[in-house]
């Protein structure tokens, strides 16, 4: 742990509750922090300082790659609601579209596209988890598509979806969903809300350390530094480019043709290319697109667009909170956005700061705990992202090199354990629980070498009956749902 309150980061000037918060960077990350802090901790006096006078005209790199659309995971929506923001407002003002998961094309060597849904898959049979039942069925020669037993995947296939009602006791109550939102519209929504809750605009300031004189706590939300090892002179920053080798991203948004435009599909789409990957996140009336690759070996079709590409520098700093400065979002860490976690990680930072907000100028204890939790979440996001990039079946030289690369111990362990017997090793700070990991491994073409012994105790007939019962209940539930587009239209009406 770095020394706290050291000269480099500025000791807090006085004792007593921290009340003056200065936020450096008026991008999505900065306004997200401002809005949620103002709503949860109304005693704070918060000022948002742009990182430069022309910040408004520059791409917003505060979360990492300036994606045209960001995704809120199912758990994130609870944090948004807890702050008093309404999901309906996000849909209305940010061209919001419900998200049930991600379709992956080209990530496994054989077997076609895969769907990674949010939420549970199937149901356990007694003490045996569903994915182990599937492994047993496959060991007995049955061909099972796990996504057929995920409600989110069935909704995505049929284009039907509505948020479950709280009094619904049917299978639909297990439906887990996120939300895709237009990044810039979300930034404006959060900014307006923050201003309405007393947050103030400040002058442009290039160096957050200079804000320490007039604030008790400073949030650095300016986005990733040029290089992690030279981040403000700190030691111990990590460069992740060996396992996240893509360093360029092109982003685009285009309006969907038609009047009215077709309803957005309730899922994202991710294709592995020979030189990188391409992602599509739908919004109401628009489709956003991201193309990620290495500058050294770009796809032929983008060579002309290279100068427009945004830089991507995966890595993280040694500690997010040092002295009186808390680095949030991409200022603290940047992952390849292939797992769609940019907004999630920044929101987790803000929620964590609210829970640990210093009651006193001496905030070493809060900082230590914040950094511990931040690192755990960061490690888990790293593992999830790196396994998607380096243990897939995609075709291309860059993928071959990634598959040959050595993984950090914990990352490799997760893969090796699942490959051995389908167990998921979960750690503190997970973004995804067991189903999320299982479906990712499925989508990458990784299957357990042998099923769980307990699963093999289940007779074939019982498995078949279990599969049928789940499928029947799910299809009946989905049939009752309205088309996704109709629900969005209703929210916006």
């Amino acid at each position: 742990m770095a020394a706290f309150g050291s000269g480099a980061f500025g000791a807090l000037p006085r004792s007593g509750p921290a009340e003056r918060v200065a936020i450096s960077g008026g991008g999505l990350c900065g306004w997200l922090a401002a809005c949620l802090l103002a709503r949860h901790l109304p005693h704070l006096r918060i000022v948002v300082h742009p990182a430069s006078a022309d910040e408004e005209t520059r791409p917003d790199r505060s979360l990492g790659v300036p994606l045209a659309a960001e995704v809120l995971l199912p758990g994130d929506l609870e944090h948004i609601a807890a702050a008093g923001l309404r999901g309906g407002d996000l849909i209305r003002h940010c061209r919001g579209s419900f998200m049930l998961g991600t379709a992956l094309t080209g990530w496994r060597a054989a077997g076609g596209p895969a769907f990674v849904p949010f939420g549970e898959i199937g149901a356990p049979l007694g003490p045996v988890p569903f994915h182990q039942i599937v492994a047993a069925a496959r060991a007995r020669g049955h061909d099972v598509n796990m996504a057929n037993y995920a409600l989110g995947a069935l909704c995505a296939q049929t284009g039907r979806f509505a948020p479950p009602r709280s009094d619904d006791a049917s299978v639909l109550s297990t439906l887990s969903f996120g939300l895709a939102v237009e990044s810039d519209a979300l930034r404006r929504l959060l900014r307006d809300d923050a201003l309405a809750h007393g947050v103030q605009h400040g002058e442009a300031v290039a160096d957050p350390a200079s804000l320490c004189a007039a604030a008790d706590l400073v949030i650095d939300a300016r986005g990733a530094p040029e290089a992690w090892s030279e981040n403000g002179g700190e030691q111990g920053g990590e460069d992740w480019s060996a396992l996240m080798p893509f360093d360029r991203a092109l982003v685009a948004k285009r309006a969907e043709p038609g009047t009215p435009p077709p309803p957005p599909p309730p899922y994202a789409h991710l294709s592995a290319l020979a030189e990188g990957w391409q992602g599509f996140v739908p919004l109401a009336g628009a489709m956003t697109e991201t193309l990620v690759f290495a500058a050294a070996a770009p796809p032929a079709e983008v060579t002309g667009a290279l100068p427009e590409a945004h830089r991507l520098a995966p890595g993280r700093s040694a500690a997010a909170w040092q002295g009186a400065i808390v680095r949030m979002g991409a200022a603290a860490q940047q992952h390849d956005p292939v797992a769609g976690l940019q907004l999630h990680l920044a929101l987790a930072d803000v929620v964590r700061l609210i829970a640990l907000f210093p009651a006193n100028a001496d905030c070493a204890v809060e900082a230590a705990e914040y950094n511990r939790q931040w690192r755990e979440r960061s490690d888990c996001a790293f593992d999830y992202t790196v396994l998607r990039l380096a243990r897939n079946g995609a075709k291309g030289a860059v993928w071959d090199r990634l598959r040959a690369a050595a993984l950090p111990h914990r990352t490799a362990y997760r893969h090796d354990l699942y490959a051995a017997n389908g167990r998921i090793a979960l750690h503190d700070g997970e973004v995804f629980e067991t189903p999320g990991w299982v479906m990712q491994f499925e989508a990458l073409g990784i299957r357990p070498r042998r099923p769980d012994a307990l699963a093999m105790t289940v007779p074939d007939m019982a498995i078949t009956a279990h599969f049928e019962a789940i499928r029947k209940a799910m299809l009946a539930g989905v049939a009752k749902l309205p088309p996704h587009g109709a629900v969005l239209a209703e929210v916006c009406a």
Partner: protein
Amino acid sequence: MANSALAAAEGGHPGAGEGAQAPVGSVVIVGGGTAGWMTAAALANRLAGLPVTITLVESDEIGTVGVGEATVPHIRFFNARLGIDEADFMRRTNATFKLGIEFVNWGRKGDSYIHPFGAHGEPIEGVAFHHIWARYRRAGGTEPIEAFSLPVLAARENRFAHPAPDPASLLSTYSYAYQFDAALYAAYLRSYAEKRGVRRIEGRVIAVDQDGESGQVRRLTLDDGREIGGELFVDCSGFRGLLIEQTLKTGYADWSHWLPCNRAVAVPCASAGPLSPYTRATALDAGWQWRIPLQHRTGNGHVYCSSYISDEAAAETLLARLDGAPQAEPRFLRFLTGKRHRQWNRNVVAIGLSAGFLEPLESTSIHLIQLGIGFLMDLFPTREWDPMLAREYNRLMDLEYERVRDFLILHYHATERADTPFWNYVRTMRVPDSLAERMTAFRERGIVVNYRDGMFLDASWVAVYAGQGIVPRRSDPRAEGLSDAGLFIKLASLREDYARMAGELPQQARFLEMIGARMDMRAPEGVA
């Protein structure tokens, strides 16, 4: 339950796998105490559909330790999975209900607090209750945190009823466990396991054969010359670790510098007074005393450190402090706190005292057995013996042991006691960094460091911190913003609600009768 339906399913073992892919076909459990019979019963239940033979070798000559007569709530899931009826099980093991543990003289002489199976208070505007309570104390409030706990208030008056299923009810704010006769519990599970095909062999192991190449245990030789071969061996032989240590030389991590107690003396005595639904742990000069009330008697013991007190003095101290007449000669035990470096080594899995020892201050012994069994089921080996299974088993068990260890150390270290050399040692010793950081976080800011795995959740840590005199120096700023007047009114009304609800619960003895769990005093001990 679905699993009993599976167990009942007929029709062989379709596609259970061939050769190396097949689960191991024979399990040999060495030792028939609580660990051995819990393992046998759980395996017999959960492997019912597999072609596995389960054999348990035990010798009547070798006594069992009968670890932990007090349990934690997880035991109910273990019993439920076996399909055990609560009232029947309680009658046959002379069991009582348990709402928590009372700690006497730990933080300071004269202190008493109960660590309940349940949370204190309720969050106010999203802020955890202990922040609110700390703020209330700093504003001059005098109530201890346990005044805001239904199970504590009920326990103090010897009252008990099952928790309510309705989450809106205050009666849903607690859980419960049992206090039972561990020897009778083992006998109960033995009868269960034998009915389900577990073969019990009486005999003493005098030789162990290993495979020359892999080092795996292949065969046991008994004192009468019989040989017992097996594929998976579960070592439930107790402290000595017949297979895991004496045969495989696995090695042991010694934690006695943090938990220096290394002996215990135990004696049952006659019951006196109403049946209390809690265990009591009273800190003494060089260790502590347990008191576990069962239906027919009270279990007592003195856990101590031999560097600070002699065996004779320890026994005398215990005998002088019994509620009723002693019912047996005092029995002495020796142990070394710590854990086996690898609880799963080659084809041997150590469960129970052979895996490690953590003193029963928080009734963790049976829970650690239960965890070991659960992980073994989840990671049940095939004949290829994939090394990932043992690695994951050891990773998970190491985490559990280390986290229980830290929680136990907290009880000794968070003290003001300076009245004996023993307390001076534990109060001033250097504790593991993992614990030091946690204690600082709570003391300074009321942060309860949370984790995914590990049996003790936030509420338990708060109970012990607060019970042993650690009031956070500052709270969540949202709690700081509350007005004194509002705070006192809110807490007074909460306290009244808890006290009223607790007062409405029946006495435990009455409740045992109501549900038909009262032991039949005329029946002989043992299982029919």
